[in-house]
């Protein structure tokens, strides 16, 4: 059984169908790219997995259970924007994560922050956008979770920060966990993915292993994506 399952999952906002009858099963031990253009339903899907939105129809299951307080214990979520109160000092953010999540490895987070040279007394607000993204990712990856849901982890950062973020993901995810990375910046992440799910207008249009696409089509996933979503 997968750690992350969708069964005939549908989400409508009034007359707009954001997620349209999706069936999905993601196994532990894999890094999966959730790839689609802006407005394709990526964030809606991830928000439902976190219980931030309720399905209109169908089911979404985390470790076999509906999203709840219990599933939040095993899901580490990186929202697509800064979600920490920005008045917090770094040490307070660490306390905050420690209080909320039993699986938070504070020593690991502190070590990663120390290596970045981040002053524990600095507030989130005082940090640059790139540093804020790194800090939030460090907190999220320092949990020993079973499912990591990373919504646009590399959106709007410079190439060096992007490399740092990608390396932090590879080095720190729990081997028995699944990692779902939602992005439209495919070229930057495709080498670290096991498989990709292409989503468009709330539907899954393709799901395959990265190397199977490269082998079968003789092109990168990025090039294939451009072909599939040609405007």
């Amino acid at each position: 059984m997968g750690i992350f399952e969708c069964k005939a999952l549908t989400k409508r906002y009034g007359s707009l169908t954001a997620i349209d009858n999706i069936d999905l099963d993601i196994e532990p031990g894999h890094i999966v790219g959730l790839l689609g253009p802006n407005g394709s339903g990526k964030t809606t899907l991830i928000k439902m997995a976190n219980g931030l939105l309720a399905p209109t129809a169908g089911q979404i299951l985390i470790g076999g259970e509906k999203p709840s307080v219990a599933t939040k214990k095993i899901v580490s979520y990186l929202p697509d924007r800064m979600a920490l109160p920005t008045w917090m000092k770094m040490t307070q953010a660490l306390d905050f994560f420690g209080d909320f999540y039993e699986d938070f490895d504070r020593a690991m987070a502190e070590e990663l922050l120390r290596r970045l040279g981040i002053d524990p007394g600095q507030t989130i607000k005082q940090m640059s956008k790139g540093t804020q993204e790194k800090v939030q990712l460090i907190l999220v990856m320092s949990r020993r979770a079973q499912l990591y849901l990373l919504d646009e982890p590399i959106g709007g950062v410079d190439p060096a920060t992007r490399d740092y973020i990608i390396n932090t993901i590879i080095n720190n995810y729990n081997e028995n966990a699944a990692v779902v990375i939602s992005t439209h910046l495919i070229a930057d992440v495709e080498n670290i993915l096991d498989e990709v799910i292409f989503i468009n207008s709330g539907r899954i249009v393709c799901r395959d292993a990265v190397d199977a696409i490269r082998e079968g089509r003789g092109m990168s996933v990025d090039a294939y994506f451009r072909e599939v979503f040609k405007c």
Partner: protein
Amino acid sequence: MVWKFKADQPIYAQLIEHIALAVITGEFPPGSRLPSVRELASEAGVNPNTMQRAFGELEREGLLFTQRTAGRFVTEDTEAIGALRARLAGAKTADFVADMRRMGCGREEVVRLVEENMRGEKDNGDL
């Protein structure tokens, strides 16, 4: 070691070639211990499962071997490394010759260009 990947080939196949080349050039000497899957995956910026797959393939070919507790090592069989070197050199040459043929270079021209290049006489042939 610089890791660069071509867009039109599977990543695992490129990892295999990359590691094989590192063994041939002595960057990973015979009998030496290799970094862990995750370390090397992180260095290369690739998925650890893909790196594992490349390692598995190289183990099946006998270039690498695993010792349960100690880790993963390069073979000490220098003959096997030599054979691999010959195979890879042959494949690279075949690619080169195919490219030259496509440009309309005949056998004599190819041989002459290679000789000139290796003598360092020709320095204005760069594109």
